[in-house]
């Protein structure tokens, strides 16, 4: 069970420093946290012409929450905001066990490696924190405004 969760890929992403920074020209900054466990991230997005030009984060939490955030950042760079929301929804459905087809999950790229979390109800919130935060951030800012 553990080796399916704490894979080398997840270890690498949880320790990676590359996407842990502040953006000089952030369009959106959104804080997300799980009050029950204390996992905490701040997500920064730079959006231009409806496309996520750059993304970064800061925060502290368990390996799953941090790896998931790091993977999401890499996936979102270059995507349109609409695409980003759709992918966030797909990821959340994967973690909730609603989408299980590997082919369908391919577009989540490395983040599809977190699929096994769907069998660990106690860790679902850790995996989905960043993706809910992204969705809230775009929603709050007004998705339409960003798309223009």
């Amino acid at each position, binding site marked *: 069970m*553990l*080796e399916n*969760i*704490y894979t*080398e890929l997840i*270890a690498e992403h949880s320790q990676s420093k590359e996407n842990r920074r502040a953006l000089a020209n952030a369009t959106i900054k959104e804080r997300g946290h799980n009050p029950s466990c204390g996992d*905490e991230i701040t997500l920064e997005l730079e959006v231009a012409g409806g496309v996520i030009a750059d993304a970064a984060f800061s925060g502290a*939490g368990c*390996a799953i929450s941090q790896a998931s955030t790091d993977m999401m950042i890499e996936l979102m760079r270059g995507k349109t905001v609409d695409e980003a929301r759709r992918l966030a929804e797909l990821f959340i459905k994967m973690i909730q066990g609603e989408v299980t087809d590997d082919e369908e999950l391919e577009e989540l790229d490395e983040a599809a490696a977190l699929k096994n979390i769907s069998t660990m109800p*106690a860790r679902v919130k850790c995996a989905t924190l960043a993706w809910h935060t992204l969705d809230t951030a775009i929603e709050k800012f007004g998705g339409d405004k960003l798309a223009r």
Partner: protein
Amino acid sequence: MDKNFLNAFPILRSKMNGQPLAYLDNAATTQKPESVVRSICGYYGGCNANPHRGVYELSVKATKVYEDARRKVADFLHAGSPKEIIFTKNATESLNLIAYSYGLNNLRGGDEILITIAEHHSNLVPWQRVARATGATLNYIYLSADGNLSAEEIEKKLTRRTKILAVTQISNVLGLVNDVKTLAARAHEVGAVVVVDGAQSVPHIPVDVQDLDADFLAFSGHKMLSPMGIGVLYGKKKILEEMPPFLSGGDMIEYVEEQATTFAELPQKFEAGTQNVGGAAGLSAAIDYLRGVGFAQIERIERELTAYAIAELKKIPYVELYGCEAENKIGLVTFNVKDVHPHDVATILDAAGVAIRAGHHCAQPLMKFLGQNATCRASFYFYNTRRDVERLVEAIQTVRSVMHLA
């Protein structure tokens, strides 16, 4: 003797993730012996009716179960009278009752409420709200380097302006036993009322409210073998009598007219609505069980397990312990594994059948004071064994390699 305990707790012989269960989350809630489960079934199977109301025999029986439990709790805490025992849902409700009924009605701007930085949110957030509503100030006693309450801090912060001192008898994060008796005496000298959070002490050490001279003491049944949903507020009769009701409705009244109501006497004044009689029956059976084991034995076992766990964890260079240098410590060990978040530690231990708590333990200000976002906590009860501690240590030794750090 260990074996006898396991026989009384079938759940402790169950498995978790295919491994024998090592249940080390007793500060969160304890397991229930068969005698407690039987008493609850016995109540609902043979005595259930609404107490205090019916004139028929079954209701009288239910009333007797409930009031016998109250007398047992009064005796257990060495209270002056069963009227000083109010049944609640848990320690949180008990502390809220004090905050809302006593705090809101007796404090005003310029007054001070004094608590410690090691309080559980349940003995902290209600006081924040009372302070905000009344204009009183909420002050904190900070800890010395060893994790104990600093004597200097107590001297400095306990003043004539202090109207309430609310303090835990044993910290749920550090396991340190506060000298509540000395603190209460000092608080009474300046005219403050003393509120004791007994959630982590009443299950583990003998507590005598009159000896402590506590004005109020709160605890939860579920942390001492009882079902969830039954808790206790002890209060000195003289103070409780002067307090207005917290919740109002059925069973707590004397006369109700269209525009006015007179309230029932203690303890009914504070027990609105149908109460948790099955829970009270369970609490009563739990007290019998604990007395059978004996607090001398409970304390001895827990001190031994705690000392053993600390000694073994100290041998692991990448484990950091908190509040483990102090002598007056009982029942739990709080720690971190270097470079690994507590939740990941807890998941890895879970796979090995070891149940511990990870997170902020409902004590975020203390976590900040300790400079940690979160910690792991292994907490013991008398039914735990040295083997449980060994399994904890063995599992911790695998953590860094599972996380690809070793």
